[in-house]
């Protein structure tokens, strides 16, 4: 009996070994396509980038590595084709090779499945970055942007991103305590203070969206169509119309306070119990209600009470799909501008943070491909993008 078992296990071991050999042979055969045929040749125009061309040709922005690799392969036999070293950087006049869909898929499989075999030719990815904690504002999560773009990062970098969606104040505090690896927030002054105090490194612009003043269709304060947001707020105050404030120290709440200050109305100054230096400004009167909750809850309460409130456009538009009745009354004032920045938590201060993952995330977030994804997010659903791409690489490519 024992002898028999031994024979079986030997047989199984042999099977496994031979199977492995066969598999590795197949992988090898796949990973070195001898030649590639160009179905189409494209000369780079101004304002072109690889993912844009990829989307045109294959309907998928993520197909861009196939074009780059096919072109590089062609370059070895025909010098008129370009040699692409940095996939984010192509120049006007370069000749590109667009392989057939089948060839592109072969190339993509190999490029995405085994990047470590040919690191110089594939994505700028070294190893899996693992678990990454991202502390961000509720607007990026509630609008659905992160759900739309993060899978791309997770696939490319072998990461699992844990999103903690909170107010800007708490997101920054999480960064200061080293409980997050990277933060994505919108409160420029606080971001700069965070970096200046040594808590964060490598701050980069990512995108912006804007705030809108929304309220009931009936518009009791009569502010519809006004372009001066301070004048509109003054009118809300003068007519004692109900206004719901986030009151949670979030980026939106901070913006709202600066707008009230711009009205010149008399404001109550509330000293923070914890930090007397920090003062919250709010107009006087019962019509102003501070609820200390996130954007989603604020919209729900404003809708229930048919009140005015300040919201970022992304969260507001996302909620209109779920049937809130409030409408945009004031928009377009330059003071309603809302830029987002991404900052890595300083690994020298908190050695346990995933610094490699944070750096990869920032590179990815500001890369042309991701910026392209951001600029397209929401168009299909709302007929307008929710965020405007604004990274340095994106703006350079746009010029």
């Amino acid at each position, binding site marked *: 009996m024992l002898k028999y078992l031994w024979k079986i296990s030997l047989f199984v071991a042999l099977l496994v070994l031979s199977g492995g050999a066969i598999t590795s042979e197949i992988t090898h055969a796949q990973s070195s396509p001898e030649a590639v045929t160009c179905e189409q040749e494209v000369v780079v125009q101004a304002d072109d980038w690889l993912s844009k061309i990829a989307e045109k040709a294959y309907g998928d922005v993520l197909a861009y590595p196939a074009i780059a690799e096919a072109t590089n392969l062609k370059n070895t036999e025909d010098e008129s084709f370009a040699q692409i070293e940095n996939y984010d950087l192509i120049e006007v006049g370069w000749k590109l090779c667009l392989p057939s869909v089948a060839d592109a898929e072969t190339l993509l499989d190999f490029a995405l499945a085994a990047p470590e075999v040919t690191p110089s030719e594939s994505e700028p990815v070294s190893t899996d970055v693992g678990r990454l904690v991202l502390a961000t504002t509720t607007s990026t999560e509630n609008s659905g942007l992160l759900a739309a773009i993060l899978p791309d990062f997770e696939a490319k970098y072998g990461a699992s991103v844990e999103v903690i969606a*909170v*107010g800007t*104040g*708490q997101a*920054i*505090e*999480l960064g200061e305590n080293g409980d997050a690896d990277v933060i994505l927030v919108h409160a420029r002054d606080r971001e700069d203070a965070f970096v200046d105090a040594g808590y964060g490194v490598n701050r980069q612009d990512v995108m912006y969206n804007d705030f809108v003043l929304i309220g009931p269709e009936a518009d009791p304060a009569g502010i519809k169509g006004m372009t001066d947001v301070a004048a509109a707020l003054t009118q809300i105050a003068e007519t004692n119309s109900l206004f719901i404030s986030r*009151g*949670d*120290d979030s980026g939106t709440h901070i913006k709202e306070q600066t707008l009230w200050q711009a009205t010149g109305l008399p404001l109550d100054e509330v000293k*923070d*119990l*914890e*930090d007397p230096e920090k003062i919250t400004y709010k107009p006087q009167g019962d019509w102003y*209600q*501070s*609820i*200390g*909750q*996130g954007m989603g*809850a604020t919209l729900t*309460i404003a*809708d*229930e*009470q*048919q009140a005015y409130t300040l919201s970022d456009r992304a969260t507001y538009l996302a909620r209109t799909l779920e049937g809130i009745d409030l409408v945009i009354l004031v928009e377009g004032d330059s003071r309603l501008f809302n830029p987002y920045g991404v900052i890595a938590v300083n690994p020298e201060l908190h050695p346990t943070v995933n610094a490699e993952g944070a750096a990869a995330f920032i590179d990815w977030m500001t890369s042309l491909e991701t910026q392209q994804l951001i600029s397209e997010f929401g168009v299909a659903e709302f007929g307008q993008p929710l965020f405007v791409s604004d990274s340095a690489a994106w703006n350079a490519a746009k010029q």
Partner: protein
Amino acid sequence: MNDLIQGIIQAFEIILSLNSALYEIIWLSLAVSGIALLFSTVLGIPLGAAMAMARFPGRRLMTALLYTGMGFPPVVIGLFVYLMLSRSGPAGQLGWLFTPKAMIVAQTIISFPLVAGFTMAAVMGVDPQLRRQLMSLGATPWQATVTILLEAKIGVIVAIVAGFGAIISEVGAVMLVGGNIEGKTRVLTTAIVLETQKGNFDLAIALGLVLLFLSFLVNVALLRLQGRAFS
């Protein structure tokens, strides 16, 4: 760790600072939970006693429902109350949403099964012969019930304590139906959530300690009542 120690120091500073906003929050917490507890006691003790003593069809099912209610997630009750009181809900005309009234309704529904369930258990623990004795001595059914409840006093007070503990510390439902409006519906638990979200961890811990201290005071008072039951 630093936040924790600082929070404890700050808790005392804040309590002693006589900050009016803080006392407003404490007062509202006690008022909302106190009134809700009064309602659930008035409704829950008779129901619990009746279910322990009376025999009627469907009693088993009602007991099962009551026990389920004891473990019902408060936030789901909050959601239910919210939907009832919403502008588009059946009781929307009342205009109770985002007022302390809505919070009292939610907390009453949360604490009522606890008070009734524990009362039922306490009354069932009283010797069943007592009722027969009382009746044979000429007591009316009402007098007999009151005497049995007094006999089960310790357990009934535990029922009230459990009801209070469940609602004074509850956050999901009051956040949902109260809206955490400053100076209007903000209570200790929702203020703790807010300060945590703002990154004011010290202040959040200080408020948590205030809540703990209040709970302790109320329980000491109730236990003194229970203590007298022994003497």
